[in-house]
Structures are given as C-alpha cells and as structure tokens.
C-alpha cells in the first residue's frame, strides 16, 4: 500500500514473535539500539497458537528488568497486529519513533561518549 512511515526502523525477520529471547532484546540495547519493539500477531490469531502470548510475557519481563537496571522499560514495547494491517504498522513505527525521540538516545551512548549519527537528527 506504500504507506510512508519513519525511516528509523530496522526490521529483523522472525518466523513468529514467540522466537524472541530475553538476551536478544538486552543485546540489542547493549549494542546501541535506542528503542526496540516486537510486532506479533493479534492475540488469538497466532498461526502457532501461543507464540505471541509468550512473547508478550518475555517482553514484559525484560521491560521490568530494564527499569531495574536504569535503562528504562519504555524503550521496549510489544505490539499486536495482523499481516493485513499495513496502516497499523506504519502508525506503530511512527508512534514508537516519537516515543524514543522524546526519551532521547540510548543512555549507554552518552556513557561511551562516541556518538553514532544513527539518530543524528534527533532534537
């Protein structure tokens, strides 16, 4: 449908959101991601029945962990949408980009002082 959305998103393809692992999420932040979101199917529509429920539990666990370690849990989010909902994906992409812009770049970057221009245009 060629809907335009923010170009700050990089997509990692998985067969199902149920494949996501706590470490992969944490690793993304450690590597420098400013924000991560997991897009799974609508609740109850998962082709593999429970994949997206498990993903939501794991994402919530990691969100709690991120709060505890000072990174901030809002940088990670789980969304549920179906393959047919192009407009919803674009909306999420823009919404998440705005949220991360508000939160600012990944705090680890400030610490390690070298700025990558990934988020160059962030106000």
């Amino acid at each position, binding site marked *: 449908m*060629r809907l335009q959305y923010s170009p700050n998103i990089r*997509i*990692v393809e998985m067969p*199902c959101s149920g*494949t996501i*692992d706590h470490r*992969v999420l944490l690793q993304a932040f450690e590597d420098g*991601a400013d924000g991560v979101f997991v897009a799974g199917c609508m609740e109850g529509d998962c*082709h593999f029945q429970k994949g997206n429920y498990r993903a939501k539990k794991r994402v919530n666990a990691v969100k709690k962990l991120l709060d505890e370690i000072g990174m901030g849990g809002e940088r990670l989010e789980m969304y549920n949408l179906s393959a047919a909902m192009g407009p919803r994906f674009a909306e999420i992409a823009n919404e998440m980009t705005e949220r991360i812009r508000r939160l600012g770049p990944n705090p680890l970057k400030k610490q390690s002082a070298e700025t*990558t221009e990934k988020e160059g245009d962030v106000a």
Partner: protein
Amino acid sequence: MVGAGIAGIQASLDLAESGYLVYLVESSPAIGGTMPMLDKTFPTNDCSMCILSPKLVECGRHLNIKTYTCADVVDVQGEPGNFTVIIRQRPRYVDVDKCKGCGECAEACPIDVPSEFDQGIGERKAIYKPYAQAFPNAYVIDKENCIECGACEEACQAGAIDHSMEEETIELNVGAVVLCPGFQKFDPSQLTYYGYGKYPNVLTSLEFERILSASGPFQGHLVRPYDKKEPRRIAWIQCVGSRNCRIDHGYCSSVCCMYAIKEAVIAKEHSKEPLETTIFYMDMRTYGKGFEKYYNRAKDEQGVRFIRSRIYEISEVEDESKNLRIRYANEDGTISEEEFDLVVLSVGLEPSPGVMELCRKLGLTLNKYGFAEPAPLTGVGTNKPGIFVAGAFSAPKDIPETVMQASAAAGASASLLAEARGTLVKEKEFPPEKDVSGQAPRIGVFVCHCGVNIGSVVNVPEVVEMARNLPNVVYAGEYLYACSQDSQAAMKQIIEEYGLNRVVVASCSPRTHKPLFQETVREAGLNRALFEMANIRDQCSWVHMHEPDKATEKAKDLVKMVVAKAALLEPIPQVAAGVTKAALVIGGGVSGMTSALSLADLGYRVHLVEKEQQLGGVARRIRHGLKGEEVQSFLNDLVAKVMSHPNIEVHAGTEIQAVAGYVGNFITTLTNGKELQHGVVIIATGGVEYKPTEYLYGESDRVFTQLELEEALVAGDPRIENAKTFVLIQCVGSREPERPYCSRVCCGKSVKLALKLKEKNPSANVFVLYRDIRTYGFLEDYYQEARRKGVFFIRYNLENKPLVEKEDGSLKVTVTDHVLGVPVVIEADVIGLAAAIVAPESNRQLSQLFKVPLNEDGFFLEAHMKLRPVDFTSEGIFMAGLAHGPKNLEENIAQAKAAAGRASTILSKDHLESHGVVAVVQQDKCAACLTCVRLCPYNAPKIRNYAAEIEPLLCQGCGTCAGECPNKAITLQGYKDHMQMSMSKALFREV
C-alpha cells in the same frame, strides 16, 4: 492449454503439479497475457508484475510444461481422452535456446515502431522482447517492419538470429483441451463522440496502465503522452463499449469499475502535486471480496470524486493545451461543464475475432456476444466433452475468478484423464548438494533495482559498494530485475565462479520471492538454507519514497544485518513425509459436494463431513439459478452422485472435534468419535442468510427475505398469489458499517424474482429500490429485460433510505425518485428484502481448529486475494464456496472444482518435503525441565531417555520453545539467537 495468460499459466501449473504433461500454446511471443501490462492490481495494490513473475518463472522452468509461443491452434479432431491438435507456429527468427535476452540486437536495430505491449505509446525495435520479465526470455523479429539490414545478426554474439526460419505445423496428441485465450480490449474509436484517436488526450485504460507502470514508456512518471506535462485533473469514463445495446455490447465487462478506482488511487500516489481524479459512472460495481472497502476508502479517504452520469460527448478546448471539456448532467438534471487535462476511457472486454473463428471450427456454441459461456452449473464445461474453458474468454471476469476457473478447468481435465496421471511426467533432478561444512563463509550479495521500484529511491550502486567490503563478502553486484530469468542464470554462474557458500539477495518480500531464489541456489548445488533476503523494497523504497537518502541508509543497514546473519547460516537437511491419498471436505452444500466429486473422480478417497443430517446446504432453498436453471433437480442428482460414489464416505450429523498433523498427514477426530486420516482439507462451510432488523422484518408477515420470498412464490403462498404491489429493497445488511461488504448475489436474484413475479402476474407493480444495481457480466441482460417488462427501479442513497411504515394494517413504503426528486408513496402488499450473506458462527471455531485466519467480516482469509484465492497460507488446506465469501451458485461451483484441482496437486504426490525450518535439541544441554513439552501447541517435543527430542515433521518452526528453553538447549534452525544477535551487532558496528 490454448492461451498463456494468467488463466493458462495457473491451469498449466496445477496440471503439471498433478502429474500431467501440458502443451501451452500462446499466439504472442511471450506468455503472461494482459496481466504484465497492468501496473497495480486491486484490491491489494500489489504490483501486477511482482505477483505474476514467480508464476511466470515457475511455469517457464517447469519440466512438464512445453510452451509454444507465436503459435495458434488451427484444428482439433478426436474425442475426449484422444484429441489430435494441429498448431501452426509462426517463425520467431530467433533461436529461443541460444538467445540470452541480452538486448544487444535491439540496440543495433535501426527501426523504431510503436510497441503493442505499451499500447503504442512507447516504442520498440523491429527485433524486440515484449517486456522485461517475459518468458521465454528471448527476442523476436517483427518481419513487417524489419528491413533485413542484418545489424541484429552482427550484434548477436550468441548467434541466435536466423532469418531463414519458416512457419511450422506441429501435431500434438492430447487427452483434454482447455481454451483460455483471454479477451480483446474494446476499440473506442468506433464511438466517435469520445474523440479517441482524434483528441490526443483521450486514452484507453490500458494505455493509462502503461503510463502508470514502472516498466512503461515513462518509467511510471505520470505524464500526458501529448506534451509530457503532469496532468492535474484526470477523468475516467465508465461503460465504454459495455452496457451499450446500440453496438450489441449490452453486457457489463465486470472489471472496469474496480480498475478505474485503482488507476485513480495509484495515479494520486504517483503525482507529487495534488491530483484531482473524477470517475463518471452509472452503477459502481465493486462486488468482489474486499472491493467495497476499497471503493469506500477511495471515496472517503483518498478523495476520488464519483459522479453518477453517463457522458454524452467529449469536446476539445481550442487552445493548444488540447485539454478536454465534458458537459454532463448531474443526478438532479442540472448541467455542469468541467475541463480535464486527461480523459481515460474504461474500455470493456470483448472476444477476439480470431478466437471466435476457432470456436466455430470446433463447433463450440458461443453466446450472443461471442463469449464461450460455460454450460450451466458446470463452471468450466462446454457443449464439447473434453474441451473446457477458463478466464475472460468464457465471460468478462476479474483475475481471482479467472484463476479459480483455471484451477477448476485443470481439475476437470485431470479427472477426465485420471488413469493417465503421472505417465508422461519427469521428476525434477537437482545437482548433488555441496558439503560446505568447515568452509569459511564466502558470501555473494545480489542487490536488485526491481525496475524503478527500488532503484528510483535507494541508491543501489552505493549499497553494492558498501556490501563489497563487508566481512566474508566475496561478490556484490546489482541487477535490474533479480527475479528475472537472466539474473537467475547469472546468479548460478557467479555462485560457481566465486565458489560462494552463502547467498544474500537484497530485493523484495521473502514471502513472494524466497522460494524462487532458494530454487536457483539449490540448482547451483547449495542447500536452500544457505540463503537469506534483505527486503529493501517493501521496507525501504516503498515506505520511504520521499526520503531517498534515509532509505539508502536503511537499505545499507539491512544488507549489513543480513550478511552478518548469512555468515552463521548452516545447511538444513530436507525431511520427507508420506502423503495420505485421501481428502477431508467440510460442509455438504453444493460447493462441498462438487469438490468431493471432483476429487473422487480423480481416484482419491473423500470424507465429506456435514453437520446437518442431509446434504444440500443453502441451495435447498433455491428454486431457480440466475439464468433460470432448475436448481432442485441439479441438487438432487448431485446428492445422488455423492451418496453412490465408491470413493466418497459421507459423515452426516457430525462436526470436527479435533485436528492433528500437518499437510499430507492430517488426523481429524469427529464429534461422533470417528478418526479420519487424510492428506488435504477443503473447507466449504457455506454462508447464512442475515436476519434483517430493518424495514419491519419480523413485525409483519408480509415482509420476506429473498429466500423466503422465493419459497413462498414457488409454494403458491396466497400472500404472494393475490398481491398486486411488490417492493424489493436491496442492500439490507450489506454495505453497512457493521458489514462493509457487498453480498454480490442479491441484485441478480432480485431482478430474477421481479421477472418471475411479472411472469406470474404481468399487471403486478414491482418496485426494486437499490443503491447500485450490480448485475455484472451477462446478468445485465436480465436487468434490461426487467426494465422492458415494466419493473420500476428507484435508487436511494445511504442518507435517504426507504421508509417502511405500518399504516392501518397495510405497509407503506416511501422513497424519493432519483430522477424526479419527489417522494414516491407505495402501498406494498409484499416486501422482499435482499438480506446479506453472513459468515456462520462455526467459522470462528474451525479457524481455531485448523489455525487458519478469518477476515474482519468473518469469512476465511485466502493466501493471496489475487493469485491464490482458494489456498490458505498453511499448506494442504483449501476453501470453496460461500466460506470464502458471497458469490453465486455458478461461481461457487467453479471455486469448488478449483479447490479440488489445487488439492490434487498435493494428493498426486507420493511424498512431500518439509520446508526445513524446525527446532533442534542439543541433548547434552537438556535438563529435561519439560518447558518445551508444556509450551508446544503441536506436541512436537517428547522426553526420550532423560532429554527432550523434537519430531521434525510435527514441528511448525515457530521457535516458541527455543525462545524459552532455560538452558538454551533448543535452537530454531535458520533463526538461532546468535544469528539475531549478530544482526543487531552488525547494525550498530561501524564498517
């Protein structure tokens, strides 16, 4: 197979996959028919070429399909099972095997002539290839315009050009013939008042498609051919060459309303400046699945103007802009005049004279418009046994219906030749798989332009340059169309030359193109799993159109991530599984029974499950088909055939309890306890008539639904017999916010009911209150017959619906006449409501059992609206009939045969190969903590000797267990954690 449009291609693929040798005869130099000329297709806005090219390549490369281009059938003799077909192949003057499609010859050729493919707007040389992804990927010489200068011969290094080629006559011996030669577009120059051919800014819709298309003469840049200016105001005129008795084209061409909306929407997308689009129409006929939503979105959100007025004439303004002026009448009779930069004529479809000539020779009966209308209630049959029809040649129709009819024709031909299955076919051999274990990764990166779809936004050379110095990359190159046949050949050659053991393609969506590239990688001797795709089109160029530099930046990142993952890819062994040669058909209506019979005739066992005690479904309540067919007698002998067929076992009065297994090996338990083993499933659970809440339904015994009215009429109910005034109201429950879809059959049915009422009592007053009369195709003749017989048609709109009131015992209907603009007050004796067709509640439960999705309206969601209308995404499960969506009996029968045709492509195989992406347990790390056993919905993991073990054939590859195994003993092949982590690491590490 006569004609290689989408119908010919689909039918050939289905038959070849079911074990039959197919001769595909195409009169033009390349297969593909009209679809390659289209820019986008409705209602998904997929690029037509992108969804077609995998099928083109699959059909082109298929061992069991022999394609004859530039060939026409001249004669067919013999009887079903043994036909001799004479075909005449015109010389191509280029040897197809030698020609690499490199195009040097065309460069050298001095002759420029208008290109037929580009509808005469673009140009081509005397030696040309119809279009980029054409199959066969070879050039052809157009002798009329060739001046025999020999320049092409010199330029051709492959020595493929041979001017001495002559016409050949070839004789083929076949068992069945499928005629699907497509249609011819109506030539609007004969309607002088539109000025086509006289005014340069009046174009046909197909010409406009070429202007919109990225492979078109202007590379998708929307300009007027006349002065290359970008138009600001475009008008579409509907019913050009359709619904016109004056030129004996009284039928409706069924597709023009939808393609006009699509062209308007896509044109808006192509123009930087705001573009005003207007469609002049009589009835907006968006009756297919998802069409109404598409129309509403175009109208309400995308600002396409719809003006209900048939255009009298187009005149040209005097100044040199040659813009066009249209003087048209509004619905209230006032006159408006507007100027447009461009007018597109939505030309209809008509049979091509050459084909009609062939049909006459074959003794095929054509209808009064020259179409080969199928024998009633057969979907694909003709008056000649053994000869079937499919596609727009049988009636003007849309691509999904064409594909359904093609699969149905394939199914019908297959069942005719059931014994000969598998006798003439060859298996596909692959070279032995190279052992790459232990080798350091050597990655090849192939970046695609996809015409301008990627190249116009993402700076492809920059991406290739970046990819060249990524770790482990030994080759990086760019391709205009990575999916086209020549690029595939180049890829194989480069894998050989550079000794690649990993391949990355940066192009479009893996969903449509991964299998195609994996096939090529496998043909080059590499395991299919050593391949990964970066989607730099749907995730970059398409969605960041107006930010090219950011899109290029993102494309580079995606390639970096995928290359990092590619380095870690390991070969995955293929696991084969047997196929139970039996089918489960759910639903004993006409669709279910037709599918069951088709499969049974093919020699497979069929379990037909019906929740009622007797077969028949909703068809039990239908007396006459839309064309007057006797439905009850047809239904009874269908039931008789099913009950008596040795291969069919009917399970009545029972439903599905539980489902296990996967394609080829399903085990289903019924509520009566029986356990069935089968290889495929066809869901044909039908539809239910909506119980209206409007128009006093239920509060007066004189308000019927259509089915009730037909039953009462046939039974001679006194309420009907002595009624004098009838009011039929359309769109009751359909095209409403709660059910934003058209139930498609009610207009045809109301017209038929009105005719029946008039026939019974000519002096009766019959009113039909409608929003759009959607009697598409040849149903339009019945609409005209109803008007001639004095049925009153009054249009209402959503804001001003008819008012039905009870007034001292009688029903009063008030509606505003759409021409005179004054209210009409009708004392109705009988009111018939065109109640919607809704999805049965049981669909939700079935969707859970088989894990197949529903769309928002509750009907089952097919794998692809355009090209896989009867398949589900999960393998081995198909659908037919009202379960897919509202359609009439004829169309349901075609879809039922199509589902059987598709299912037989699986049942005809002895074993299936699993797709390989499954979870694996590293036994020594497993603490047998039972997490995986408890989590897996498919019961794939079992604990054996103190550690978990996953049954590869049961595992669906979802990775839920891998994500939660506490000791990381389970990994999902192809998607291991360290692969995903390597992608994020690569993303943020500066190269």
